[in-house]
């Protein structure tokens, strides 16, 4: 990232942490967790221990991190390396839902590709429209439809955690990740000591992966689940029947193992929760801290009180709104705090600080002049 851009983001994040540090709390059992952070233009600092809220605030104000992380794991010695010397005690369960994994048809409309050869910026396509190169980096500016769809996955997941796994609703917290999805935390002590392999079972469960016909009543009509059955048996049969009146006819697949398995696989795609299973199973990962700013977007990772009504592009926009002039080359439009921005075709624009930060974090704007290729054509006059 350009030095001027780093300085701008650093200043924006600094203002945020200065104003909001008081509302950022350390997670429960902070003294047993590993912390880490990154600063603009430098590498990751890991294996830190932060014991109290005031230590965290001091660090946020002193360092102005571009990203700050905290482990879901608890350790006896969180600050010691290597990992196996930390003495793992347990970990909260975390599920990661990412809008990009939903592959909605609108995604190409708000995915921007920057050619690595000629730096041409355009909406998503196979090859560069300027030089034909395939080498590119991509940035997504997810639309509300994508985020709402990710939110629906989160609601579905919360239901399964609560109804099937018996995790109390008060122990489930859903956070907007600050970029393209949601992190769901389950703070339930009964699950904390589960190892990676065991967590894999839970991930497969919420994803409805690995179901076999025999377990879902494929062998006889009287073992076929009832329409109102709880758990996955009920969900599966409701998916097959679509409505109660078609329940009887949905039993037609009983006895045909191949057709039954096909239906189970279809159901996995359709009604299984789309999570990144690697996140759930990795018990040595550090996660972005709630209430901190995500340097991929300039938006904050915040708790969603009600996912169904949550608007990330209003509620998570917490940087200042003073006007800032930037050079933008952003072929996809976006909405923040109810205001539409862009598309911008290599132009100088004055936008609120949060919108400027959003585009700079995505690599679609800069404080300095745009590269020569990206400037608008000179007037013929």
């Amino acid at each position, binding site marked *: 990232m350009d030095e001027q851009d780093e300085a701008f983001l650093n200043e924006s994040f600094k203002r945020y942490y200065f104003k909001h540090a008081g509302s950022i709390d350390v997670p429960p059992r902070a003294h047993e967790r590993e912390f880490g952070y990154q600063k603009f233009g430098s590498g990751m600092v890991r294996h830190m221990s932060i014991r109290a809220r005031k230590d965290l605030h001091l660090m946020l104000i002193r360092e102005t991190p571009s990203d700050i992380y905290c482990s879901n794991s608890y350790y006896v010695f969180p600050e010691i390396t290597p990992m196996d010397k930390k003495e793992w005690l347990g970990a909260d369960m975390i599920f990661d839902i990412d809008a990009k994994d939903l592959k909605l048809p609108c995604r190409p409309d708000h995915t921007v590709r920057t050619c690595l050869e000629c730096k041409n910026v355009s909406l998503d396509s196979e090859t560069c429209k300027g030089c034909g190169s395939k080498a590119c980096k991509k940035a997504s500016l997810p639309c509300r439809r994508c985020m709402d769809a990710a939110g629906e996955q989160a609601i579905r997941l919360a239901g399964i955690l609560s109804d099937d796994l018996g995790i109390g609703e008060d122990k489930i917290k859903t956070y907007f990740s600050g970029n393209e999805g949601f992190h769901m935390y389950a703070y339930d002590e009964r*699950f904390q000591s*589960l190892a990676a392999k065991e967590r894999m*079972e839970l991930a497969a469960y919420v994803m409805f992966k690995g179901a076999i016909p025999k377990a879902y009543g494929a062998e006889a009509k009287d073992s076929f689940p009832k329409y109102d059955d709880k758990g996955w048996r009920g969900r599966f049969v409701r998916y097959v029947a679509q409505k109660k009146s078609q329940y009887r006819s949905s039993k037609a697949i009983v006895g045909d193992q191949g057709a039954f398995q096909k239906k189970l696989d279809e159901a996995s795609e359709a009604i299984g929760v789309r999570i990144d299973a690697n996140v759930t199973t990795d018990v040595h990962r550090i996660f972005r801290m709630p209430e901190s700013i995500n340097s991929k977007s300039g938006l904050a990772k915040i708790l969603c009180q009600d996912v169904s009504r949550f608007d990330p592009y209003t509620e998570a926009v917490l940087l200042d709104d003073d006007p800032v002039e930037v050079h933008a080359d952003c072929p996809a439009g976006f909405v923040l705090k109810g205001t539409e921005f862009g598309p911008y075709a290599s132009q100088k624009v004055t936008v609120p600080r949060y919108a400027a930060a959003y585009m700079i974090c995505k690599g679609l704007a800069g404080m300095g002049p745009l590269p020569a290729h990206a400037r608008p054509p000179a007037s013929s006059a």
Partner: protein
Amino acid sequence: MLKLGSDEIAKYPFMQDAGAYLKETTGFTLEQFGSDPDLKYIQEIAVKRIGAAAAGDIFKSGLYDMDSKEQTTLNEVASFLVAVVLLRMAKASALFNRFALAEARRAERYLERDMKEYRKKIQTSSKKVEEMRPARIIEELFGMRIRRDGDDFVIPVPDYVRHSVHFYEREWKLINRHVVGGDVFLTAHGVVRLIRNDLVTYIREKITKGKYPDSLTGFEDAIGSVRGIAGRFEAKVEYTGKFPPCVDHAIRVLQRGDNLPHSGRFMLATFLLGIERKPEEIIPLFKNAPDYNERITTYQVNNLAGTGGGTRYTCPSCEKLKTQDLCFATPECNGIVNPLQFGRRK
């Protein structure tokens, strides 16, 4: 702490209370089973118990045949403990797992039957039914809480996955279980099957970690018999020392009589087939596996070899073995992507 009745001690002689029963209730010492002529028959029962386990059978108990409850309890408990001591004194490591597996399966039968009886009693009796004893025993051993719900037995999801992850069969995956409100619904058979591996480990540790004398007078003949039984399973493995560490490890596990997971057996057999070993050379390697069955092993190894025109399976990649916890790479493995390349490339 759970206090067992004498009938429970007889069914589950590996429990702590069984040792205390022998010491405190009967007053017998281990030495007496070698020196007292009236008690020497216990050694015979113990050897039969080991013999049955070695043959893959479950020791036929006299638990429900004998007239005297006291006598039954003594026979059951003492023969188990003497068998454990005999295995240790005979250093019959090839039988440790077989014995532990057979005893675990024996206990499973009682646990399952008692769970079903409890369910029947609670569903039909108008009187207050006492606690579910098999569940308390399982909880005491493995900290797993079990309760009854209608015809089913339910255990908490975390307890279930801790045990089920050791199973290879897909039916044990959580997704293939009825899960509601944090509980997994199982049959009595399902519950006891779930704890088998832990029970085997628990009983095996009674043999390997118990504090017993190295030798005792009056046990010589029985030790000789146990060594004779063990000798049938101590297959001499031709081992050149040139195998990759993963294969080396798998062979050592089998030599110890420990359980090698299905994926490890697959890797070992396909590796050896890959270096042109014949099925008949490979099959004896599995003789020490606790669940060895010659007919099944022969079928499986021949199947992997593609005998009769079927698919010939190849050895999994190092990457795959890593995900299965079967990789024990050493610097000599640098640059290879499949165990079959070991020693061929630098």
